[in-house]
């Protein structure tokens, strides 16, 4: 008997989900660019075409729009396609089938049908790849009714959320980040689902809530460790599911800590962090003792040169700095201003 739980990398966990879904459900097939290539998906899909056959794992022409549209059609015919976009940037060529078609379909036809499609988009930044190979576009798609958006940060969730996405019966955008591929964690051997719409509290704390998405979730845990040395007790919530997101979990935490930092490694304006900040400003108005802080990317395209990249990307240090600022905030004579 294989062990019920063992350690896998994030990339291995994704691959295991694909393999188990392909093995257990004849309706599942995979289509997209780079599926027969040794490098497009890293180890996250290695050898999957050989294991399940190239009629069910279709490396596609360079036609994001038609390929994604074909998957929408196949889903409407009762299949369970997973579309693979090796860079999220490339997926922008498929916005019509994702936004106009898949997301609207159930509503346009009063729920007589739905589109059980999973679109896997990979964020693959750094390495001086610059503006068109680095974008994290979760906010654009989160904006659209009819789409669900998930961003796992651990090997456990990478597997469980992919299984949940395929079984959901609606269009789900599954976004993984190559910067997470070597993260190691416990993963059950069996097929299992992580419920879409549920966050995970990664660390309990009483003084500040840090809500983080995807790559920023392990960064937040690292930040919390650093904050502990400063006597700041942070609670870390890994959002996991961007839409629907676990509002109750975040509200409950902020009611306890009274302070919030949101970390999302994507553009700031109208981003996921903005949505959470606005919601908490409403739901927890009487509780908050400091303004909500956001840790995001600057409103600029991804740069190339390493010196610019290090100025551009955010991580644990930015999160801990934001948490310190939030925790040092004091009201003064009824006028809000930070204490120096």
């Amino acid at each position, binding site marked *: 008997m294989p062990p019920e739980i063992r350690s896998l990398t994030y990339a291995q966990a994704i691959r295991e989900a694909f393999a188990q879904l392909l093995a257990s459900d004849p309706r599942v097939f995979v289509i997209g660019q780079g599926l027969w290539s040794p490098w497009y998906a890293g180890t996250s899909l290695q050898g999957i075409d050989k294991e399940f056959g190239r009629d069910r794992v279709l490396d596609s022409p360079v036609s994001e729009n038609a*390929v994604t549209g074909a998957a*929408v059609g196949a889903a409407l015919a009762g299949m369970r396609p997973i579309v693979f976009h090796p860079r999220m940037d490339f997926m922008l060529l498929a916005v019509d089938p994702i936004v106009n078609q898949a997301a609207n379909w159930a509503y346009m036809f009063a*729920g007589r049908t739905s589109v059980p499609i999973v679109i896997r988009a990979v964020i693959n930044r750094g390495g001086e790849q610059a503006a068109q190979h680095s974008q994290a576009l979760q906010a654009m798609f989160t904006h659209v009714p009819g789409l669900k958006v998930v961003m796992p940060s651990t090997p456990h969730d990478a597997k469980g959320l992919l299984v949940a996405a395929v079984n959901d019966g609606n269009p789900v955008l599954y976004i993984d980040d190559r910067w997470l591929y070597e993260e190691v964690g416990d993963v059950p051997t069996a097929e299992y689902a992580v419920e879409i719409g549920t966050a995970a509290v990664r660390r309990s704390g009483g003084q500040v809530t840090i809500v983080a998405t995807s790559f920023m979730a392990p960064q937040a845990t690292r930040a919390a460790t650093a904050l502990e040395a400063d006597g700041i007790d942070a609670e870390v919530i890994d959002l996991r599911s961007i839409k629907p997101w676990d509002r109750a979990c975040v509200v409950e935490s902020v009611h306890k800590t009274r302070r919030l930092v949101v970390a999302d490694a994507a553009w700031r304006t109208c981003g996921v962090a903005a949505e959470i900040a606005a919601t908490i400003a409403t739901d927890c108005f009487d509780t908050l003792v400091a303004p909500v802080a956001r840790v995001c990317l600057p409103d600029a395209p991804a740069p190339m040169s390493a010196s610019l990249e290090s100025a551009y990307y955010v991580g644990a240090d930015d999160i801990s700095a934001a948490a310190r600022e939030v925790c040092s905030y004091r009201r003064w004579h009824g006028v809000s201003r930070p204490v120096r």
Partner: protein
Amino acid sequence: MPADAAVLRRLYVTMLRIRLFEERVAQLVEAGEIRCPCHLCIGQEAIAAGVCAALATTDYVWGGHRSHGHYIAKGGELPALMAELYGRETGCAGGRGGSMHLIAPEVGILGTVPLVAATIPLAVGTALASKLRRDQRISVSFFGDGATEEGHFHESLNLAALYRLPVIFVCENNFYASHMGLLERRAVDQLEQAGHVHGVSSWRVDGNAADLMYDGAMAAVARARAGEGPTLLVCDTYRWRGHVGPSWDEDVGVKRKDELHAWLDQDPIAALGRRLAALGIPDEELAREKTLVRTEIESSVQFARESPRPDPKGVASHVFGLAKHAP
């Protein structure tokens, strides 16, 4: 096998149902009873009728903004269609879609939507599903000449040819995309060439000749069922009415009067009626068909008028499908 008298008669009735339905819709739009944008296919009926007569009920049909004809030809229910145009809960899309969003899954119509060319890749997708399942179903994509200017039309032809999919691309070339004539939009008017460069068998057909449409569709269906891959049918026809609504367009200077009148003389229904008369089918029989169709249409109007509008409380329901599709 070429269309025999029984098939021709069936085509005639289908075309009549489309024509009379849409003429009634035109009146109801003018009367203000129907308010959603309606794109009429009056004058183009032979294409939908000829192609759908060559299909099985389980075959898939995809359409666009001008798809009343496809819905009717494939066997969709008239009351649900009329009620949808009226924005009623009993409409085929529950009053969420209107004329540009029709659905009849029971006869293989999984949705017609107005984004130009959008359903072409979706048809490739149902064909891909059929190939993976080996279920022998065929997919048909209906679209206008304007759709051939979209990139995903070309992407889809390549994909279908590459995977040898059982899909038939039916271009209803009515020479207009909204107000723009074909040669105002393209340097080359030989639309079938698009198929050739992608390795898709492509034929040009007289889209106003129902029998030729049927024959062409039967040949394409035979290829698809035999695993020989996709076919592109470019069918020349003419849109009698305006891009949208019941007007004839002459008043706004979009259409040329001479051109319109030349096409009116090539009325596909009148032509097929003469053919049936020559085959010895008495006029009275065709007149009786017409009466039956009118009665059917009036009862669909009645049904629509008596149906309730959707409950405002449901404005945000159906954003997601209810069913958690079990594996």
